[in-house]
């Protein structure tokens, strides 16, 4: 089972040490593993899940549909993300979660989460931290959406995704696999496909990134960060007592 929860453990251990008992509790919390095909909903708006989904492999997005079928993606999830941990307490989903690629998902029953909160105070704080970081990412995205130029916004998103993937062992050097279409990037950044193409072109031309199919390579991390006005504070990457 270690293999299954591994990305979440990696993600949490980046921020604080976990005891063996805590790691075991996380590993044993998984009741089953589910495969969701690309473009299928993992959870739908209005659902009342009795289990939370932990993403083991693949990419997923939180989204809402507004009038005219237009979609806003409000979060991109990578392996190790506890996609709907909050449904444990919020009960009714106010948005949907969609699989962008084939996703392998570990299901953790809410009853088990309740037991963890009863028995493991530090692990409970770490799961709390997990949702706090989700909240911090939302704040950062909101700021970028409202106040950064389209090019800076794209650079910011790329910096964030690269770090988040690297943290869970999904980077090979300066390269990560990013199976996200330009239309999906547009729905994330609130841009038209034409603008998505233009800003990617600009970042390429400046020698900051390279796309080869789904493989994204960071060519100049320092300048990319500067263009995207990116500082990683909001990701709470430092390891300390929590």
């Amino acid at each position: 089972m270690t293999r299954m929860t591994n990305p979440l453990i990696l993600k949490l251990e980046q921020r604080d040490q976990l005891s063996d008992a805590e790691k075991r509790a996380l590993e044993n919390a998984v009741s089953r593993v589910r495969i969701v095909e690309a473009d299928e909903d993992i959870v739908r708006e209005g659902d009342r899940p009795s289990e939370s989904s932990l993403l083991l492999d693949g990419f997923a997005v939180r989204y809402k549909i507004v009038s005219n079928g237009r979609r806003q993606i409000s979060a991109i999830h990578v392996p190790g993300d506890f996609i709907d941990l909050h449904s444990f307490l919020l009960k009714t989903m106010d948005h949907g979660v969609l699989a962008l690629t084939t996703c392998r998902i570990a299901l953790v029953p809410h009853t088990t989460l309740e037991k963890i909160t009863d028995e493991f105070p530090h692990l409970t704080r770490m799961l709390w931290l997990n949702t706090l970081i989700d909240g911090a990412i939302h704040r950062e995205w909101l700021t970028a959406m409202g106040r950064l130029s389209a090019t800076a916004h794209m650079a910011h998103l790329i910096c964030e995704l690269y770090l988040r993937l690297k943290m869970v062992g999904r980077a090979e050097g300066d390269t990560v696999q990013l199976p996200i279409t330009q239309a999906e990037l547009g729905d994330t950044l609130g841009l038209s496909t034409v603008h998505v193409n233009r800003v990617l072109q600009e970042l390429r031309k400046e020698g900051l990134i390279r796309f080869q199919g789904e493989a994204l390579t960071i060519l100049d991390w320092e300048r990319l960060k500067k263009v995207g006005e990116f500082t990683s504070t909001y990701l709470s990457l430092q390891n300390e007592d929590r």
Partner: protein
Amino acid sequence: MREITLQPISVMTDGGGSDGHMILADGLLVAILSRVTEEQTLGGQAQVEGWFLEAGFGPCGVLMSVTPPVFADVDEAVVWVRARLEAGFSPS
């Protein structure tokens, strides 16, 4: 019905100039279109090449239409402009 007129204009995009049109309604500028190729809309879900709404004003402005559309041809853009002018400032 408002008189819609078109004036050709070159628009600076991607460091170079591309073909474009200014669309005027009763002499007032309401939209600027630029020519986009299939490559420039790569990965999109809708229209692959055509005329991109580069900028819109009044009821054709971006505050009214968050994602600028790509039109198959200029006639389609004019139909859209007429619809927007008719709808006024209610969101589409």
